């Protein structure tokens, strides 16, 4: 079951199995994620989309009792090998979460957090990074006069955009988005989607989404999950127009709009 990708595969997942204790959350997942393109994960709640996404930057490492079998390679390098520095991996593979999670710090400090972690301290340089990132996340206009305010005073939508800005600030190669727009209004969502389109020229983006239209609209390649398995995995147009699997068809025909 190989997807015909136009671009080269950046991430290769090979027979991945993941267990939470005794719960088998990912079952024999294999796929290739192309470079400089957007890959969307879709599937019903609890099917393991977030779990797979988190294996890509090894955020699952921190959940006690998680066991992984199989292999994930990014740019040819096995990211679960001993010599991999998790922090460097995570800098290169940024992530935006399902729930907005800004730090209880000022807006500025939130965005500057990542760059500071990685050794950037120059005030000017930071100012610039903060502005660029906030602009990219379509938040700059709204907050430029309040950069010192606590990030927690923002509305839900604004908070999520801030988190996106924060992820962009470390200039990752890969950007993982776990339903990152589900808390946004259409206008901001649109902006983020446009942004994603723009970014894919430079970055590899993997997004989990519940919004099939978003997947159809934005992604180059779509993966459909069910109960921890990859049911279908194809170019987006193909998957939505001529699904090969009955379950895929059932699922996407449950769509609306």
């Amino acid at each position, binding site marked *: 079951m190989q997807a015909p990708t136009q671009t080269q*595969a950046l991430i290769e997942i090979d027979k991945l199995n993941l267990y939470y204790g005794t719960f088998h959350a990912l079952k024999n997942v294999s796929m290739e994620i192309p*470079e400089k393109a957007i890959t969307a994960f879709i599937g019903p709640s609890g099917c393991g989309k977030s779990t797979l996404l988190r294996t890509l930057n090894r955020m699952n490492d921190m959940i006690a009792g998680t066991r992984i079998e199989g292999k994930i390679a990014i740019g*040819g390098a096995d990211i679960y090998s001993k010599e*991999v520095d998790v922090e460097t991996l995570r800098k*290169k593979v940024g992530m935006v979460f399902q729930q907005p999670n800004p730090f209880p710090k000022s807006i500025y400090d939130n965005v500057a957090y990542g760059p500071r972690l*990685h050794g950037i301290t120059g005030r000017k340089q930071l100012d610039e990074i903060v502005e660029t990132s906030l602009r990219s996340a379509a938040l700059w206009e709204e907050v430029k006069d309040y950069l010192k305010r606590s990030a927690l005073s923002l509305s839900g939508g604004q908070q999520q955009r801030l988190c996106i800005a924060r992820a962009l600030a470390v200039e990752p190669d890969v950007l993982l988005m776990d339903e990152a727009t589900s808390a946004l209004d259409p206008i901001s969502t649109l902006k983020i989607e446009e942004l994603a389109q723009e970014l894919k020229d430079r970055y590899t983006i993997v997004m989990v989404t519940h919004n099939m239209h978003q997947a159809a609209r934005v992604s180059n390649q779509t993966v459909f999950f069910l109960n921890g398995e990859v049911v279908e995995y194809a170019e987006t147009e193909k998957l939505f127009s001529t699904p090969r699997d009955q379950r895929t068809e059932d699922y996407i025909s449950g769509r609306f709009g």
Partner: protein
Amino acid sequence: MAAGVQSNPFASSRKSGNRLKNNLFTGLVWTVGICTIIFIIGLLFLILEKGMPKLSIDFLLGLPDEIMEGGGIGPALFNSFYVLIISLVISVPLGMAAGIYLSEFAPDNKFIGFLRVCVEGLASVPSIIFGLFGIVLFVEAFDVGLTIIGGAVSLAFLNLPVLTRVTEEAIRAVPQEMKHASFALGGTHLQTIRRVLIPVALNGIITGICLVAGRAFGESAVIILTAGVTTSGVMWDFNLLSPGETLAVHLWYVQSEAIVPDAVEIAEKSAAVLVFIVLMINLLFRIPLWLNARKTR
């Protein structure tokens, strides 16, 4: 497949002072942690090792003796529990209620802020001053002499500020969303406090109660002044107006004034018993937490 990269791009690329710092930090934390564990075990060993093996039922339940070897600690041990329970029965509800007031009902103004500081200040008052206060209240004003009740209430006062603040902090730490969820379901404030805030804050509150109970069990200055250094001399004396020497006081007495030939041994055994019981209290208070954690597994 991306160009045949030989070296792993995620292998620590930066010469990374960060990484060093992280390793140093992790090492430091582990060292401190392990040292603490060793220290505590050593301390416990030191205290328990001398006393524990020599313990006997006779010692635990027997009456003390001023002249002969082999006196027990029965009445003092009993008083310890009695005083502790009474003081907790008084201070826990009072302290929790006051803490709930500060976290849930109190307006957010200067006066309450001042009050909060005062309560913290009260926690720093040396116990001997609570003892003097207890004398003024019980021995002078109520004229009941040196009694269990006087000691227990003074002890309760001593613990009140800590309980109040611990409760307040614990309840404050409960996420607002939980509170809102309960209110949105039509819960009254009391229901929300009782069914959501307190259960969620229980961990912190129990920590506070453990701290306080341990301190109460080991406190001597207050008891010496308000409950005396004598017991009624018989076992199982529930009379609240009996003199109320506790085990900690007995330990102090044995250590500083007693003439009995086996004073040192009595002190060692008493210290071991005290520490052992405090350990038990800690475990006991945690059982509800533990059950709670299991129930929601």
